């Protein structure tokens, strides 16, 4: 009943627009969950946005901080949240009360684009579509702990967990049974089983023994076995990228702490696909709002100027800022154009005549089909890796920038395609977070924790790393270490509970 009421909470004119836009979107081939629109005032909008879309989230001050920042920037007229859409089934979307009809129409079209992406993109295939309920469960659990153990205790613990929130393995949800434990292959004859020092030998007559199984070979085998045995004793057996999971299972935590850490980890995993597909998701939604509004008769003639103003407001590029809406939209359009004109495949790629390349048109008309395929299977990294072209970079005026230490300013570094692509991909790898793994949970056989930063050319920020290590210590309760590099030299940062050591 209440669900039913909500669907009709739109005023009649918007309701009929919603129906029309939905019909057009379906006609265009978009496929989304049932979508519930609600009109809410700006303070409610700020509130929901502060909670990351989930008004039922657990209590924590940082949501209050986000709220204050949003409320202030709204009050000063600096920014306004037009649209908020939640990846659940049904999909919930919020419209800002008091916006003009043209804004609401644009937002609806945009939302259906997001809805289609949420439902069909592979990287969202593992998300919990009933996350609203789960978040509410998380919240009530945290509230209960607050009642039992006191606000500051629980809050401090959440703070600690949040500093480690980015240490998850974003790809693990897509790998079925990631850690299959295989028994070690044993090729010892049966009578020698269980004898660790035994080495498999070839059967040989006694006088041939030294030739068939030479003693240096036997020695080498023994050494190899000993090494392997040591490896087996390693903990974790392989470096563990999901640091939160490792802590969840191995850190000396009480039950409620384990639960809270689990909550933080679950939510981090829920939001991860959105981080992995930001450019595509916004690009896709923008592609569709532009198309539905301008080419499908949704936009009234009198609204064109307002529409153009809003649209360009979203697409604006500031120097030195990469706008995911703009980049995604342009790249989708570029793909559509290229596949319409047949600018793909061996013949096109081997063509070195620039004029011929530019004029290339086989009338393949595969563009629409291609972009739907792309939105199904790609994430930001593969999207850019596969479809970014030198022509596109030049057209979009992309560049890389770097910090110039002597002038203490940021400068444009290069407009080379290879450089731009490399930087972009590096920036998107692991959602722009450093890759950090648990290397050893029994470092130096003293139950100390060793994390390794898989250094890929960019150093960590020192002060943040120190502070985070201190928090990690408060979970592990034994000295913690982080192996990284600084200025290309190996560096081991350790915290022993009292102070930071650098080695």
């Amino acid at each position, binding site marked *: 009943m209440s669900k039913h009421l909500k669907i009709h909470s739109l005023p009649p004119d918007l309701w009929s627009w919603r129906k029309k836009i939905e019909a057009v979107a379906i006609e265009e081939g978009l496929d989304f969950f049932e979508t519930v629109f609600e009109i809410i005032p700006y303070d409610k909008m700020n509130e929901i946005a502060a909670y990351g879309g989930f008004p039922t989230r657990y209590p924590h001050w940082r949501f209050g901080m986000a709220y204050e920042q949003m409320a202030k920037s709204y009050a000063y007229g600096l920014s306004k949240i037009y649209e908020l859409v939640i990846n659940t089934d049904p999909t919930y979307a919020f419209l800002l009360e008091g916006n003009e009809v043209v804004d609401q129409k644009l937002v609806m079209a945009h939302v259906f684009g997001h809805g289609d992406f949420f439902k069909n993109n592979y990287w969202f295939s593992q998300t919990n579509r009933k996350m609203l309920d789960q978040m509410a469960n998380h919240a009530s659990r945290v509230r209960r702990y607050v009642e039992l153990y006191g606000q500051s205790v629980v809050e401090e613990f959440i703070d600690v967990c949040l500093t480690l929130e980015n240490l998850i393995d974003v790809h693990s949800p897509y790998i079925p049974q990631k850690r299959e434990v295989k028994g070690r292959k044993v090729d010892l004859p049966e009578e020698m089983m269980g004898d660790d020092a035994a080495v498999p030998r070839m059967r040989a007559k006694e006088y041939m023994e030294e030739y068939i199984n030479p003693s240096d070979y036997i020695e080498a085998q023994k050494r190899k076995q000993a090494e392997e045995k040591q490896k087996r004793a390693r903990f974790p057996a392989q470096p563990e990228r999901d640091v939160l999971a490792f802590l969840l299972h191995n850190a000396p935590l009480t039950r409620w702490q384990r639960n809270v850490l689990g909550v933080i980890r679950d939510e981090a995993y829920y939001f991860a696909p959105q981080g992995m597909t930001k450019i595509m998701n916004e690009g896709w939604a923008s592609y569709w709002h532009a198309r539905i509004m301008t080419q499908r008769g949704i936009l009234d003639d009198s609204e064109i100027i307002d529409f153009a103003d809003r649209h360009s407001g979203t697409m604006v590029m*500031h*120097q030195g800022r990469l706008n995911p809406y703009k980049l995604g939209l342009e790249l989708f359009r570029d793909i559509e154009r290229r596949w319409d004109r047949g600018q793909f495949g061996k013949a096109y790629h081997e063509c070195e005549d620039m004029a011929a390349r530019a004029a290339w048109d086989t009338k393949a008309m595969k563009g629409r089909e291609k972009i739907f395929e792309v939105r199904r299977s790609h994430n930001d990294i593969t999207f850019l890796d596969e479809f970014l072209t030198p022509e596109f970079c030049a057209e979009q005026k992309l560049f890389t920038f770097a910090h110039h230490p002597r002038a203490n300013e940021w400068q444009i570094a290069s407009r080379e395609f290879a450089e731009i692509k490399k930087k972009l991909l590096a920036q998107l790898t692991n959602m722009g977070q450093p890759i950090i793994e648990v290397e050893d949970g029994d470092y130096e056989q003293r139950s100390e924790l060793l994390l390794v930063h898989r250094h890929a050319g960019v150093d960590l920020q020192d002060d943040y790393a120190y502070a985070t290590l201190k928090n990690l210590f408060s979970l592990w309760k034994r000295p913690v270490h982080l192996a990284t590099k600084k200025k290309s030299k190996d560096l081991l940062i350790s915290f022993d509970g009292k102070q930071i050591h650098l080695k």
Partner: protein
Amino acid sequence: MSRIKQDHSRFRQIVHGKIRKNLRQFISRGEMIGKQGNDRVKIPLPQIELPRFKFNSKDQGGVGQGEGQPGDSLGSGDQQPGQGEAGEGEGDKGLEVDVTLDELAEILGEELELPHIEPKGAKQVVTEKDRYSGIRTVGPNSLRHFRRTYKNALKRSITMGTFDARAPVVIPIRDDMRYRSWKTESSPHSNAVVIYMMDVSGSMGEEQKQIVRIESFWINTWLKSQYRGISTRYIIHDATAKEVDEHTFFHTRESGGTKISSAYEVALRMLTEEYPSSDWNIYPFHFSDGDNWSLDDTSRSIKLLSEHLIPMSNQFSYGQVKSPYGSGQFIKDLRRSFPLDSADCTLVCSEIDNRDAIMGSIKTFLKAGR
């Protein structure tokens, strides 16, 4: 209370606590001065940010979009150009939080355990305010109370038997009309004036003035929270004294000698002419490095203090800032002439050796709650 209100007030509470914890540091660094709006200040509070393993942004660089040649500048500083993306709420910047001056005063009061001030002679100044608080039967149409009027009309028509539930028409007549009425409330109101006097002779250096500036900012913040209306006046002196505005007060540097009595005379004239002590709470503050030209002038100053300024004021405060050139003599003379240790003595002296001493000095000045 809605959830976000709870989280928000928790956030404010944490900000409050962090500021309080770091108050000494904030005070001695003078960080909030200059970041001051009308009733609020911006305080840099990176302590509140949750740390995490992240890349050093200077080492990382990035990709941008737009015009320009390699080598062109995109802006300087520590922050990456265009950090945070369009449509994204968060950006990890050096965090600054807004705090109202009232909040700041509250924090100062808590940390220094300052008593609230008992205003004197305040009852004479009275403000009047109108409040709508009742209903009457006559009044202007603009104050008509629609609901009450119709309620009366309905009651009347029911008792008279003219009300027909099937055709419910209610027409108010003259007697049914009801109007809002107001009451005038008067509340006592107290005013305060703060007079800052500072020695700007050659021996007072930049650092000394900065100390005075920081200290006066905090004293002002506190006094403002204690009085509804407060006026602040500034007097500088070397061998002669004059009234100046705030900016000049902190940025003037003279090279002449020092005659403290000149400032006291200007202050006295100002007080007798504009601020009768029966209506005003008076707070003169005088900062100098303790140098005075002559013994004659010192005794003249002391006389002015004991006969006029101290009796008029709630409290007269003298802060002596240590400078490499000053002799620091004046405070000794004051100590000799006044029973500073007695509880009734409304002359309070404090020596401020360096920035770290500011907090203690503020406490010395304000702890009596006068």
